[in-house]
C-alpha cells in the first residue's frame, strides 16, 4: 500500500531564510510524486511534479529513491509562500488517484 508522510504539521521560517518541507513515501512500485499547495481562501492546486524536474515560484523538489523522500525546498522564503503544502503520490492506475500526506502549514514571518 502507498503511504505519504509529512512529519511537520507546522513550520515557521523568517522571510529570506531557506525553507524545506519534508516528505517521505512508501510505495512498492515506481512512484510519481507531487506537491500541492493551498493558499489562504484558495483552492488546492498543483505546485510541481517530480517528473517535470521544474522550479515553480522558486520551489524545487528532488525525488530521492534511496531515502524515499521528496522534500520541497526554496532558498529564500517569501511572505506569499505562507500556505498549506501537501505531498502526494499517485498509484499510477488508470484513474490518476492521488494519495496525500497530512500536510504542512508553512508560515513565513516578515
Amino acid at each position, binding site marked *: 500500500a502507498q503511504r505519504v508522510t509529512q512529519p511537520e504539521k507546522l513550520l515557521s521560517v523568517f522571510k529570506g531564510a531557506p525553507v524545506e518541507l519534508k516528505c517521505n513515501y512508501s510505495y512498492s512500485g515506481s512512484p510519481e510524486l507531487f506537491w500541492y499547495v493551498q493558499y489562504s481562501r484558495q*483552492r488546492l492546486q498543483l505546485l510541481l*511534479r517530480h517528473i517535470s524536474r521544474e522550479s515553480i515560484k522558486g520551489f524545487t523538489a528532488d525525488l530521492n529513491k534511496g531515502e524515499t523522500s521528496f522534500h520541497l525546498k526554496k532558498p529564500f522564503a517569501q511572505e506569499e509562500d505562507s500556505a498549506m503544502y501537501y505531498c502526494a503520490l499517485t498509484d499510477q492506475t488508470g484513474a*490518476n488517484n492521488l*494519495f*496525500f500526506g*497530512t*500536510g504542512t*502549514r508553512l508560515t513565513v514571518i516578515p
Partner: protein
Amino acid sequence: DTAVSQTPKYLVTQMGNDKSIKCEQNLGHDTMYWYKQDSKKFLKIMFSYNNKELIINETVPNRFSPKSPDKAHLNLHINSLELGDSAVYFCASSQVGGHTGELFFGEGSRLTVL
C-alpha cells in the same frame, strides 16, 4: 468560468439526516473524485469516477454514495449522517491520459453534523 464548482459551500445538519453535495466541472475531464479533509487537515480519497464507472472506493461506509448523471457531474449523497462525517469535502477532476497526477479541485464543502 469556474472549472470545478461545488454546492453548497457550507452545510449544517442534524444527525440522522440525508444530504447531498453537488459537483460540476466544465473542463471536459473524464475522471472525477471526492476527497474528505478531516479536522486535522488530512486529505483522503473517497471515490473516483471514470466514464460513469466507479473505479475506487477507499473503505468508505456505504452510507456514502457517489452519483454521476453525466461525466461533468459527480454528486455525493450521504445517508444517516453521523457526527464523524463532519469534514470538508472536496471534489476534483482530471483528464486521464493527460498530465498524471494533476487534479483540479473545487473550493470544498464544509459539512457540520450536530
